[in-house]
């Protein structure tokens, strides 16, 4: 089905596309061409695979969480341990790919946006590795909340630029990165951190993240001799989710994407664009969007900074509409409980984003029968969230 999508203009049905100022259209065509060239280039993949294996620590393990699954009468829960990848999250899969591409394109300057700082750190890391200048835009609110990641980026030689406009969070950091890109388009590569933005970004980020699902497929066949019954992943912009889902889209495997329920959907204090948003255009793509009736983008809330975003990748919008993937929400409170639970039961402190996926898994495992297999994408580790959680418990 959607394996061959998007079409050449970057559309998944009515979603996706390129809704950007004319100044960057040329750059998007150039990027698409460069990306399509490396996509089938053996040399590029050789290099990418080398870095993913020797530098980022891939493949990450698929761990059978024995104590976590104990209460569920034989339902097996596997954790895909993206938290073990270098820099502590799946983000590095994408940034190594994109920064390699940038360097092939002869770009001397890479810019990125970041919310919690994970994508910023991953971009700073890949740029340090490849000797390219890196500038990261980060909302001043997020800078306050994530001091450690700002320090990490600076240690890696990246310049972090505070963004003071709007809500001073991820959405505004993307706006500012886009303004920078529009201004310095000739020498600058914009490394987007999720499966969002104008074509070809959602496709390209998916392709760089699909290594997660490809590994899961091999690992689960080896361990179980069959494919899993259910895949679970959290969805903010949606890169870790599309990364694990994509290689299974044509298979008889159920998939659930878990969005940030925040304080509850009825409160409007959440980040659930697929569950509670409307179709609209933001940051270059048509997708689901949290907005008011006049088309103004609304402020979001989630205890997890990585899910605190009003938009979502266009491929997820398509997968929702086609019914192939089910999307649901988990509240801050449920995610915090799962965070605590996984730490105590398995000795794994998950990122608050990933804790959303764990929380949903616990709820649904109760209703599943004994021989079923669930794979949860544990997209990142929780060290970055300790301060936030400490303030809450």
């Amino acid at each position, binding site marked *: 089905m959607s394996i061959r999508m998007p079409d050449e*203009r970057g559309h998944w049905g009515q979603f996706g*596309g*390129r*809704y*950007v*100022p*004319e*100044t*960057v*259209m*040329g*750059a998007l065509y150039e990027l698409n061409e460069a990306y399509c060239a490396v996509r089938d280039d053996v040399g590029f993949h050789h290099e990418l695979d080398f870095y993913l294996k020797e530098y980022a620590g891939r493949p990450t393990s698929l761990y059978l969480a024995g104590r976590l699954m104990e209460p569920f009468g034989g339902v097996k829960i596997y954790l895909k341990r993206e938290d073990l990848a270098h820099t502590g999250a799946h983000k590095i899969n994408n940034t190594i790919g994109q920064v390699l591409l940038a360097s092939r394109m002869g770009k001397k300057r890479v810019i990125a946006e970041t919310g919690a700082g994970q994508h910023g750190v991953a971009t700073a890391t890949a740029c340090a590795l490849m000797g390219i200048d890196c500038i990261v835009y980060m909302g001043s609110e997020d800078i306050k909340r994530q001091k450690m990641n700002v320090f990490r980026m600076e240690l890696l030689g990246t310049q972090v630029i505070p963004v003071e*406009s*709007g809500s001073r969070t991820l*959405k*505004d950091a993307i*706006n500012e990165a*886009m*303004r920078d890109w*529009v*201004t*310095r*388009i*000739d020498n600058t590569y914009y490394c987007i951190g999720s499966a969002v933005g104008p074509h070809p970004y959602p496709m390209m980020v998916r392709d760089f993240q699909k290594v997660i699902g490809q590994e899961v497929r091999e690992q689960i066949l080896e361990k179980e001799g069959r494919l899993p019954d259910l895949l679970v992943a959290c969805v903010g912009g949606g890169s870790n989710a599309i990364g694990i889902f994509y290689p299974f889209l044509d298979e008889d495997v159920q998939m659930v994407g878990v969005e940030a329920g925040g304080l509850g959907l009825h409160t409007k204090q959440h980040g659930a664009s697929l569950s509670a948003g*409307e*179709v*609209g*255009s*933001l*940051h*270059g793509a048509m997708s689901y*969007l949290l*907005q008011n*009736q*006049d*088309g*103004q*983008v*609304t402020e979001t809330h989630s205890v997890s900074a990585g899910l605190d975003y009003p938009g979502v990748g266009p491929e997820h919008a398509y997968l929702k509409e086609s019914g192939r993937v089910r999307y649901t929400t988990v509240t801050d409170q449920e995610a915090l409980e799962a965070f605590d639970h996984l730490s105590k039961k398995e000795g794994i402190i998950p990122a608050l984003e990933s804790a959303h996926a764990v929380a949903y898994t616990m709820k649904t495992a109760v209703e599943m029968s004994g021989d079923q297999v669930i794979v949860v994408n544990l997209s990142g580790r929780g060290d970055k969230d300790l301060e936030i959680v400490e303030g809450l418990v």
Partner: protein
Amino acid sequence: MKIQEQFDQLKSKHEMALIVYHTAGFPTLDASMAHIQLFEQNGADFIEIGIPFSDPIADGPTIQHASHVALQNGVTLKKIITSVAQINIRVPLVMMSYLNPLLAYGSESLFRDMSRAGFSGIIVPDLPVEESEEWVALSKSYGIDLIFLVTPTTSDQRIRLITDRSEGFIYCVSLTGITGVRNGLPPGLFDFTRRVKKATDKPLAVGFGFSTPEQIRMLQYQADGVIVGSRIVDAIDKKEDVTGLIRRLKSATK
């Protein structure tokens, strides 16, 4: 008044068009309507009415601020169209809006209501030609000119595609960057306008970075119109003499 008609009249007088941009709802919607009338009385040949958006990625700090204030005041596209319908303006009115508020309004009702309120054209900075099919069809059936932008990074091939599709005039973004006041003229501007002229006979209006009569005078014979935005918004913000400013800018177009 039709956009083409206005350009024809100005051409016969050997004048460039002064296109004055204003963020509707800044500082208030009533003040905006008064300003629009003031612009016309003092020589604006077109008025571009900016619709505030929460995420204006093509705009610099001045228009970002104005948009933010307007939204804080509860200004909406619906209120703007209603207010515009109630004022009497002879010069062509052009709407400038990011796509999402238009989508929320509904494309068909938008063109119907714009046409009733007396708008002549619309500019959507984040709607490239590739995605514009439905909008082109609707704009034609309601007689509203859909105006596209070209930029210095636009290839000759794309310039032909865009100028072909653009109605009313071609919006030439003078530089690779965002809106905001700048000194002098961007390097390579005339090479760029020449590239555009080679592709089309439609009027060319140049925008982004223009704020002074000196800059406008340098555009003579290079463009059919000039768009001044951030400078006007800034003047309103700082309570400067807007009347005098518009008059000075207009006299530089003659």
